[in-house]
């Protein structure tokens, strides 16, 4: 995290705010709620309190404006610059401005006002931009689910550096951004995609191209805003040029950057019995035209041509994949091997000889 140079901060913990005007993009009540919730993000983890006033001058004045709005920092029309806010101080200090040329929403179809406001109020309180890509104070917009938003730990550390910890007896903690070689990272799902490999973990995925040494960390929501986080299983079907992602009893099909129409669908449409609540891992076996779905200590075989589960399944994983006795979190196929991921480890399984050839740390594919 980063504090604004000079550490400007409010010398009081009771701050006032005023909404000067409204955007026509949203209902006024939804704007009020987004702004109040954005302040709550910060008051939940610090001693700060925010009170709305309707008359007079507030510490933090909030306005929607387009183009040049007389603060020497003009907006630039749709996209690009979304909003800005001034560091704590008198007059314009603390004020937050939102570009009226953007499409503001309470959901994810456009720029979510709550998420942008929470970021801007970080500046109003004295925070600068963080270089942690998972932090709220990272400078680029990332579509996140506003209903499940939790302030990342990096931002909690930042605000508490300036104002101290919350006086609440319960000390909230927030999600951290995974670092590439952190041995504690466990992959939720892994799939190949047109020669690349994608490693899903929580809100993120790493994208590794065989010709690059460095994997790239991305938000799942940045690529596919309507997908959930914490994907549980994924596989690529090169015949259809799709990847399929699973969470709970639903699954989605992706074609490149696009979610295929008609999804999500129910896994029960694939033929699974209702006793299957979720898929732990999945992999397409090109030579057989089958997809294996791993559920608990068993696996199912799905015939992609017949579009049906094969008979005589499920079978015990340990029986057909000797050496794979741990819970399977993720699996993918590469160069004639299946790579089973379980916790911090991966097992290189030779399909032909039906043996585990090597056991490696789970992050070896990321250059660790």
């Amino acid at each position, binding site marked *: 995290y980063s504090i604004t140079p000079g550490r400007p901060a409010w010398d009081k913990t009771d701050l006032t705010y005023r909404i000067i005007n409204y955007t026509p993009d949203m209902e006024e009540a939804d704007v009020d709620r987004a702004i109040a919730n954005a302040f709550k993000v910060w008051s939940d983890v610090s001693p700060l309190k925010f009170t709305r006033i309707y008359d007079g001058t507030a510490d933090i004045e909030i306005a929607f404006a387009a183009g040049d709005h007389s603060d020497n920092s003009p907006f630039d029309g749709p996209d690009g610059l979304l909003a800005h806010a001034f560091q704590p101080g008198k007059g314009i200090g603390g004020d937050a401005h939102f570009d009226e040329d953007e499409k503001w929403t309470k959901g994810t179809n456009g720029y979510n006002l709550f998420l942008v406001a929470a970021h801007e109020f970080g500046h109003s309180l004295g925070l600068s931009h963080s270089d942690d890509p998972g932090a709220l104070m990272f400078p680029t*917009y990332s579509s996140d689910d506003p209903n499940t938003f939790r302030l990342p730990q990096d931002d909690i550390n930042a605000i508490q550096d300036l104002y101290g910890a919350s006086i609440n007896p319960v000390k909230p903690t927030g999600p951290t951004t995974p670092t590439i070689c952190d041995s504690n990272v466990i992959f939720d799902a892994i799939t190949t995609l047109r020669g690349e490999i994608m490693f899903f973990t929580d809100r993120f995925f790493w994208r590794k191209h065989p010709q690059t040494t460095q994997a790239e960390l991305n938000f799942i929501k940045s690529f596919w805003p309507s997908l959930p986080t914490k994907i549980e299983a994924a596989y690529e079907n090169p015949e259809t040029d799709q990847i399929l992602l699973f969470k709970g009893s639903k699954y989605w099909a992706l074609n490149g950057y696009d979610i295929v129409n008609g999804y999500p669908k129910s896994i029960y449409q694939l033929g699974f019995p209702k006793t299957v609540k979720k898929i732990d891992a999945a992999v397409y076996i090109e030579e057989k035209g089958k997809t294996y779905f791993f559920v608990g200590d068993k696996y199912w075989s799905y015939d992609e041509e017949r579009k049906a589960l094969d008979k005589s399944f499920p079978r015990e994983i340990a029986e057909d994949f000797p050496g794979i006795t741990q819970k399977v979190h993720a699996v993918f196929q590469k160069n004639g091997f299946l790579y089973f991921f379980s916790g911090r480890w991966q097992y290189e399984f030779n399909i032909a000889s039906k043996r585990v050839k090597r056991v490696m740390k789970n992050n070896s594919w990321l250059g660790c």
Partner: protein
Amino acid sequence: FPAATKADIEEKNIQLAETYLKRYYDLETDGKLRRTNANSFSEKIREMQEFFGLKVTGKLDSETVRVMEQPRCGVPDVAS
């Protein structure tokens, strides 16, 4: 049919980068930046690439341009 030429795209990207670096990385220019102060331009690109966790090359590669084009907050990333 009329497609943008490589030179057009490069010029557009350089203009985008100049505007971006001036706004967020305190790049100073007298309007003749590319001839007189290329090192400063490159240094600012490096600074930006490092901040965003990109490969630090000091060059305006496609990934750097992609990040510059993302919607973002208008507050500079560096101290003024």
